[in-house]
């Protein structure tokens, strides 16, 4: 089996429109959640989110591109530019045939759907823009990243709600590890901050109207975010041979299904995923120094996740650092695991342990070291990223420094 390393990363999210500004914001424990702005927001009860406000797509894309790019595609193509530029790779000849794209998204072109439904139902229009279909399809982001970078290998979209990015990253990892691909572009993107997107979540009664406070006794729900993070996964010897800067090694991945409830998480499913990821990475539980938690800020997730971590790590659970960066950038749903991988890599590379901000009061059901309110400077050599989706689909990634 081949070793898989990360040689490039890029992002756009509410904390920053590149990796450096995102890590800077995390290290300063900044919260980017605030009042959202979009059509009909006054008809919503939930009005806060991690919305990207300092991004004018016209600065980065041609007019023809914009007519084909939903916002979730814009985010993916934009973040992929940063990641591929950092990797220094140019995809031509044989390499382009053995390099592909796998991204996660839950909503796909939801902005396009929302605008078009408004036009035909609310405004009574009988004509919609000719490119609604290629703009809203869930694989639009993958296809445009592929076209923009000449990536001709295995490429597809993964959609498993809040675990979409982690599942996508896992598939990319498997393809490089097995030798089926030399380089994979992976990660995820999401843009659900529109009237229909938030209205649907509002109906589920799991959204907070005042902030995301994972693992805190006063937590009252999740807060959505938007954006993308994209990574370049490369076969280790290939990266070494060309003298590439290696950011981290992806050393294990596992996925499980709860087979229990469509929205309630299960301790067993989470525990089995964490254990299997450790086994896949050939790691002892004691090696893990930091976990980027799923940590949504809902009562159910945070309690369940704490129990699963304690069942796997036993005595080591009290030495572990566990944080939920959703408290700063919001929950990017299908893109969340990707943005959270940026925090994992920063922990391995720079010893920057991102905090859980907004923390007010201890919850005995969540008695882990959750890095409350302030980032920490501590060296770690192995980390994990958890994602536990609605539908009971769990995906956990293990990484090592290199």
């Amino acid at each position, binding site marked *: 089996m081949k070793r898989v390393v990360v040689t490039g990363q890029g992002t756009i999210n509410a904390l920053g429109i590149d990796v450096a500004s995102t890590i800077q914001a995390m290290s300063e424990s900044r919260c980017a959640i605030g009042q959202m702005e979009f059509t009909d927001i006054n008809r919503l009860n939930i009005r806060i989110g991690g919305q990207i406000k300092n991004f004018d797509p016209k600065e980065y894309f041609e007019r023809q591109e914009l007519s084909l790019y939903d916002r979730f595609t814009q985010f993916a193509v934009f973040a992929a530019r940063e990641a591929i530029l950092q990797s220094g790779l140019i995809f031509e000849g044989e390499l382009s045939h053995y390099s592909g794209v796998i991204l996660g998204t839950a909503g796909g072109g939801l902005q396009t759907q929302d605008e078009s439904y408004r036009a035909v139902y609310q405004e009574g229009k009988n*004509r919609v823009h*000719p490119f609604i279909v290629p703009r809203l399809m869930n694989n639009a982001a993958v296809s445009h990243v592929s076209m923009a970078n000449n990536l001709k290998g295995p490429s597809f979209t993964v959609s498993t709600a809040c675990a979409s990015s982690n599942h996508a990253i896992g598939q990319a990892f498997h393809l490089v590890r097995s030798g089926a691909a030399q380089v994979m572009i992976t990660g995820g993107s999401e843009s659900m901050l529109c009237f229909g997107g938030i209205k649907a979540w509002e109906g589920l009664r799991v959204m907070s109207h005042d902030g995301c406070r994972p693992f805190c006794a006063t937590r009252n729900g999740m807060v959505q975010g938007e954006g993308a993070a994209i990574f370049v996964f490369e076969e280790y010897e290939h990266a070494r041979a060309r003298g590439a800067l290696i950011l981290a090694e992806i050393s294990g991945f596992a996925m499980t299904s709860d087979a229990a409830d469509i929205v309630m998480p299960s301790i067993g499913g989470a525990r089995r995923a964490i254990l299997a990821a450790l086994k896949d990475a050939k790691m002892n539980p004691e090696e893990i120094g930091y976990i980027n938690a799923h940590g949504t800020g809902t009562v159910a997730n945070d309690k369940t996740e704490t129990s699963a971590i304690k069942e796997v790590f036993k005595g080591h659970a009290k030495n572990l650092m566990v944080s939920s960066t959703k408290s700063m950038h919001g929950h990017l749903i299908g893109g969340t695991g990707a943005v959270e991988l940026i925090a994992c890599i920063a922990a391995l590379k720079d010893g920057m342990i991102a905090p859980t901000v907004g923390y007010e009061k201890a919850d005995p059901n969540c008695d882990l070291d959750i890095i409350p309110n302030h980032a920490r400077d501590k060296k770690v050599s192995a980390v994990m990223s958890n994602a536990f989706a609605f539908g009971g689909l769990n995906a956990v990634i293990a990484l090592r420094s290199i």
Partner: protein
Amino acid sequence: MTNAVQDKVIKIIAEQAMLDTSEVSIDMLIEDIGLDSLGLVEAIFSIEEYFEIDIPFNANDPAASEFDVSKIKTIINAIEELVSAKVN
């Protein structure tokens, strides 16, 4: 009215092809101005929106449309007819 329709159609097509209106003349072919099939579909959409008309255009087989979509002149003629039919 005729010139107004012609000027507007040329403006929309030129904008879609990222050309100045002075570079697009009524005698040109759509392929001469570098408009691909998606570009033409989008230009037709913009024209429909502006004049509030429906243009019988088949993107699967542009040749099967009810008018010749390969020439700017025939496109303008067809639109003029549609616009005047709407007014009447």
